[in-house]
Every structure is written in structure tokens, then in C-alpha cells.
């Protein structure tokens, strides 16, 4: 199969609270997979298990299996830093570092000990091009990233991830802080990125999921209620609850 990530029977507890219940997920290579569902259903939690960002939460407990290209990412011999380089993440609110644009993009390289200026310059150019920022920003690489408008900040965060050359990019509601025009640009960007990367996106916006994703999973209270090709999930959902949600009858 063309699965980049396979999740099987994933249980996750925050202390005694069970946030994920026997969740399955198949993330296809070079496709966009969307996770939808009402607030608090566990979308972010599931996304963050894929690059083990949940490890940072005290008291978190995880059971089940997550395979990245066939290897269990929670195996004892898994190098978490290496994993996170393979599975990058873009957050809900743009969070560029309080550094220059250039230093933001080269962060991953510097973390990996790559200090060669020429290599860095090349990566900066490629990554900013990949995030459609090169033309606007190529002459102001030393400007503070915090001075950029929101949507450029978010695309800089994408560029920062691209610089690490990940296989998978996780995006947790990447457009929720952006206006519709900026949102449209990020969506186009994602469609462009999908030719080279596998993308998993969490979104509250059903139209967004319908527009850009190839596969969708509908979650409710920690359960994966329905998962399949987006067209199927949205037009002929098998589960009554999914039908209510995608038709806007939920809550």
C-alpha cells in the first residue's frame, strides 16, 4: 500500500481522561488527509501523536501502534528528534521565532549542525520558493520575522518546515488566524506541496476539507467515526453522525 503513516488502535490518556479511543488512521503518501470534527474531539491530539509532540505533556499515556513507513515511532529505539525532522509541523497560530527571516528558515539546519553559509543560502532560497515567499522576501532576509503580516508569517513557518526536508507535514488549523484571501493562498500552497509531501491537516472548516483533501476522517469524542476518500465522506457518509456533521446539522 501507499501508506506513509498507519495508526492502529490508538488509545491516548491525559491522566485519567481518555482523549483517543482505539483510533485507526491511514495516511496516504503524497495526499492530503483532513481530520474534521467538533471542538475537543481529539483532532489536535491525534495529529500531535504523529510527531510525538504529545510526549511533552506531563501525564500522557499512549497505547497502540503508529507506523511511519512501517516503523513503530513509539519504539524504544526511535530517535524523537530525527522523527520530528521527518514529520514536520505547522501550528494554529503562526509562531516564527523572534529571529530574522533567514535564521528562522535555517533553524532546522543549525539544529542539525549544518553551518555552511552556501548550503544555508541554497536551502533558504529553495524553502522560501517552496512556500511562495521568495519573490517578496528575498531582499529582506535579515528583517525580523515578527514584522511580517500574519499570512507571510504562516508561510514562513511552512518554509521553516520545508528546510528540514520532511516526508510528512502536519498542519493544525493553519488558517484559523488568517483572513479568507490568505487562507486561499495557503490552500493553493498545500495543493502545490502535496506533489512532494504527505500532508495531514486538522481543520474546523468543512469547505476547506472538501476543497483540498483527498481523504477525510471524522472524529467525535475521541472516536474515529468515519474515514475514507473525501468525496465519499462528504457526499455519501455511511455513519448517521457524519452525515449530520457534514450537512451542518450538528449541534
Amino acid at each position, binding site marked *: 500500500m501507499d501508506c506513509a503513516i498507519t495508526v492502529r488502535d490508538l488509545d491516548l490518556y491525559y491522566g485519567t481522561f481518555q482523549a483517543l479511543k482505539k483510533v485507526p488512521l491511514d495516511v496516504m503518501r503524497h495526499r492530503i488527509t483532513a481530520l474534521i470534527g467538533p471542538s475537543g474531539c481529539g483532532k489536535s491530539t491525534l495529529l500531535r501523536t504523529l510527531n510525538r509532540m504529545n510526549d511533552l505533556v506531563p501525564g500522557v499515556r499512549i497505547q497502540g501502534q503508529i507506523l511511519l513507513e512501517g516503523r513503530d515511532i513509539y519504539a524504544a529505539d526511535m530517535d524523537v528528534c530525527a522523527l*520530528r*525532522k521527518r514529520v*514536520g509541523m505547522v*501550528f494554529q497560530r503562526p*509562531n516564527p521565532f523572534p529571529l530574522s527571516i533567514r535564521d528562522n528558515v535555517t*533553524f*532546522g539546519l543549525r539544529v*542539525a549542525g549544518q553551518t555552511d553559509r552556501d548550503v544555508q543560502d541554497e536551502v533558504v532560497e529553495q524553502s522560501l520558493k517552496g512556500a511562495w515567499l521568495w519573490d517578496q522576501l528575498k531582499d529582506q532576509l535579515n528583517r525580523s520575522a515578527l514584522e511580517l503580516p500574519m499570512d507571510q508569517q504562516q508561510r514562513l513557518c511552512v518554509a*521553516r518546515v520545508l528546510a528540514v526536508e520532511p516526508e510528512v507535514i502536519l498542519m493544525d488549523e493553519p488558517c484559523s488566524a488568517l483572513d479568507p484571501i490568505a487562507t486561499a493562498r495557503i490552500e493553493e500552497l498545500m495543493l502545490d506541496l502535496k506533489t512532494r509531501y504527505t500532508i495531514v491537516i486538522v481543520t474546523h472548516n468543512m469547505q476547506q476539507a472538501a476543497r483540498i483533501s483527498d481523504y477525510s476522517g471524522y472524529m467525535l469524542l475521541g472516536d474515529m467515526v468515519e474515514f475514507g476518500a473525501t468525496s465519499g465522506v462528504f457526499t455519501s457518509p455511511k455513519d448517521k453522525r457524519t452525515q449530520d456533521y457534514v450537512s451542518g446539522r450538528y449541534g
Partner: protein
Amino acid sequence: MKMSGEKAVRFGLMLLAFSSLASLLLIAVFILKEGVPFIIHYGVREFLLGLNWQPHKQEYGIYPMIISSLWVTIGAMLIGAPLGIAGAIFLNEFVPRTVMRIIKPTIELLAGIPSVVYGFIGVMVLAPFIRAYMGGPGLSVLAASVILGIMILPTIISISTDAIGAVPNTYREAALSLGATRWQSVYMVTIKAARSGIVASIILAMGRALGETMAVIMVAGNAVRVPHTPLDSVRTLTANIAMEMGQASGMHRQALFATGVILLCVIMLLNGIAISVVRGGVRRK
């Protein structure tokens, strides 16, 4: 009835606020009034760069004491700043929140220990140790630096911890999600983001070290001379004022006030820098 009560309270508070302000102002004015004429009369150069402090011969050069103050302060910073910053980082990044809630107030409590106690420990433990293992009189620049370095730890740790704690968690998350180790995220992002607060803590601590008197009198040895090694005995500006003010009169007394003027200037300068660094940091965010 009620209104007049309100007014009385307001007036009372205002009076208190103004009187504290006024007393501060008075102190400053008094020191300046006693000290500045002396500096002008004796000559700025002779006063600041004169090598001899011999009040009975009308010689009032404070150069050795300026240098001694600098050595002691810099020494204290060399010891206190790295320890304090490391401690602040450790508390923030590697200690659970619950433990931190106990440790931090405890460290801040250290600031309340009277300086004479620190001095006492310096005299009883540190100075003999230095004399025995490193030579010299024991009461020295080194002893004063170590004691002051410990005394300023609470200031540095407390302010730096707040600054580091104020760094948004999203920076940390972003760094870790790019494959950074915990330590890389600390020194590549957190410290840079908290830089202005950390610098402010260092400058404030420097002011404390420079102004500390009691502990320094006890452990620095008080010989008026330009130090050549950290094992030499020295007398700082503050120690000079405190030790001689009791017996001084006339010119001698004015010279001590003039020493105070110099101290006041340096400390105000340091505080000014600290405030502008913090403000600059806020503006950038």
C-alpha cells in the same frame, strides 16, 4: 461625611508618597551638595586618578578604590551571572512546575539574609580556605567576589526566571517540532527571546554588588591599593565611606561625600541601562 473621609485618606496617602520621594531627593541633594564642591575644588583628575588616599596628608585619590570596586564587582558577576542564569534556565526548563513553585520563593528568601551573615561566613570559612590553599592574606578580591557572587544570585535567578517563563511556549514547541533537542531549543530560542530580561537582571545585580558594603568590609581586607592579583586585599568605594565616615571631619568628610557622588553616578547609570534594556525588549514584542 463619607466624602471627607475619602479625601482625608487620599491626602494622607499623597503626603506619605511625597515624603518618601522627598526624602530620597533630599539624600541625593545632600550628597551632591557636600560632595560636588569638593570634587571641583580638589580637581576631578586628581580625585579620580590620584593614587594616594591619605586624609592626614590632605591626599584624596580614590583611583585604587575605583579599581578595587571594579575588580570585586566584575569578579562577582563572573561568578554570579553564569550560575544565576544557569539556575534560572534549569528551574524553568528542567524542573517540574510544582517543584519550581517551592524552589523559587526559597531562592528569593536568600535575598533577605542580612549581608553581615554572608560576611561572617566569608570571614570564618572562605578567607581561611583561600589563605590555606591559594596563599595571600585570605581577605581579598577573590573572597569578596565569591561572597558577592552568591549574594546576587537571588536577584539574577528571580528576574531571569520570570523573563524565561514569559517566553511563549509556542517558540519551544516550534523548536522541538523542527527536531531540536531540549537543550538546543533553550539556547537557540528561549535565551534569545528572554535576552532583555536576563540582561536587566545582570545589570541590577551589578548595582547590588557595587553598592554592597558590610559583607565587603568584612571579607575584602580593606587595604587601600591597586590590586595586582585576585588574592590581594583591597578596599572598595563603599567600604571606604562606611569605615571612615565616623571619624571624618572637614575636607576628609567632604571627600567621602564626593566618593558617594561617584558611586551614585555609577549606580544610576547602571539602573538607567537596565531600564532602557527592559523597555527596548518590550517594544520589540
